[in-house]
């Protein structure tokens, strides 16, 4: 299931990689194989200057001080990049990971807020990754704010939303204005398609570029080297998307 010479997942990995800095520390949660692969690819591309921790990973997991160490490290300012998603995301970049309907008597309950309410405040570059681009996800106003997109000045905050990557487009978030701006539309997608499927208002430049296709050399590195790195943490993903099959380990 490839579009041209790459799969949709490979396209998203390459797209996310371009949003990452040349150095610093990224932390990746358990359920984020595409961001995880993107971060590991960036590590390869930067010769290790960009460092990656898979926080529940069997490999590439440097944490040794229990579950709080990631959050402590973020509080210390040592985590530069983190990824979040949401059941709902609204135009102020508020995230809902808890449920839809009136809380606490929600109609549909989801797992919960995880560390979002904290990481969103402490990590300078949070990338929102939510492939499903529909009005069910991108709403005018979330039903429950797990983590707010912006904060008043009397709340200490060094971190927050940087960009949003979906199956249709990239949006950048302007914290001062508390609004998204459409940055680029993926190949074969249109601005109208983005508008029709987004429940919130966003800034639209006069000319919206097309998101670049994956660079062939990046695809080569991705396919040759990243499967092995993610297999310990995301075995299904490594096999299905990156064609990597690890031997069984005990």
């Amino acid at each position: 299931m490839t579009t041209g010479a790459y799969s949709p997942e490979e396209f998203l990995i390459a797209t996310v990689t371009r949003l990452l800095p040349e150095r610093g520390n990224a932390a990746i949660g358990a359920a984020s194989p595409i961001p995880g692969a993107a971060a590991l690819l960036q590590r390869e591309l930067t010769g290790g200057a960009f460092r990656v921790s898979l926080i529940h990973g069997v490999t590439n997991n440097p944490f040794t001080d229990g579950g709080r160490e990631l959050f402590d490290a973020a509080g210390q300012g040592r985590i530069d990049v983190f990824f979040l998603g949401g059941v709902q995301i609204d135009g102020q970049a508020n995230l809902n990971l808890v449920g839809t309907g009136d809380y606490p008597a929600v109609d549909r309950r989801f797992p919960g807020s995880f560390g979002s309410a904290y990481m969103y405040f402490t990590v300078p570059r949070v990338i929102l990754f939510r492939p499903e681009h529909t009005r069910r996800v991108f709403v005018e106003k979330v039903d429950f704010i797990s983590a707010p997109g912006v904060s008043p000045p009397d709340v200490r905050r060094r971190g927050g939303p940087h960009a949003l990557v979906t199956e249709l487009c990239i949006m950048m978030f302007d914290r001062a204005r508390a609004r998204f701006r459409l940055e680029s539309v993926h190949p074969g997608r249109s601005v109208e398609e983005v508008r029709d499927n987004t429940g919130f208002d966003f800034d639209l430049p006069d000319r919206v570029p097309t998101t670049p296709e994956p660079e062939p050399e990046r695809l080569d590195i991705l396919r040759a080297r990243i499967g092995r790195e993610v297999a310990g943490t995301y075995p299904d993903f490594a096999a299905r998307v990156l064609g990597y099959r690890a031997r069984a380990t005990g």
Partner: protein
Amino acid sequence: MIAQTDVDALAEQVPDGALLALPPDYSFVPMALIRALIRRGVKDLHLLAVPISGLSADLLIGAGCVKTMEAAAVTLGEAGLAPCFTRAVQDGAIRMKDSTCPAIHTALQAAEKGVPFMPLGGVIGSDIVKYRDDWKVVDDPMGQGGGRILLLPAITPDVALVHAPLADAFGNVWVGKRHELFTIAHAARTTLATYEELHDGDLTADPVLSAGTIPAMYIGALAQAREGAKPLGLAGRYVIDMDHIRAYAKEARTQEGFDAYLKREVLGPEAEAAS
């Protein structure tokens, strides 16, 4: 020296109505003990996930053992939503106290230090705070103009549960780098532990193993339970049985399906005969 017992006797030491701390699914969950708790018919538990939970909480909830649940998330991970948790919250059968990962770690650290509260950055503006009347947002109490900050009350679990790769005859328990289990054990009034293997010697006196050892001072009772974390994994010993978890996620989508799972996997033939 600490009394060594069996898993069912250990389950007897968890009183009804206890505030029970559970490790996350990736960190040494004593599943055999969870099943024994269900067999003993424990009631009205207040569960605390540290800071998230999955199969262990879902089984206890599905079996009707739980009154309230505090967690940053309850999920079966790659296998999807935790079915009994999701159903119970949607039906109002349990009361959910939504939290966020570092808030639970911090509240346990407050109990670990014996202080009534501890501050945490961020979180303000999240609706989590709105629904937690035990949490408090204050102006910088240092009077430094540092802005508002969240204060979290200490959480002191009545009982913490853990499954460890190793324990010794003195009651010391080795959990390696799973340091959140140190925090849980320090914070809880007592910790009940199951373990895979008995270590010959004193774990606290071993120059290498001591770094991953919870001393006996915190351990109330111990029981050996080989493969005691299954179907979850135990790092370095066995991996999670994802086929089992996926099948569970599917079967437990209805209460009838869950009941069938419970009868087959938890209550067992001998439990049936006894009932």
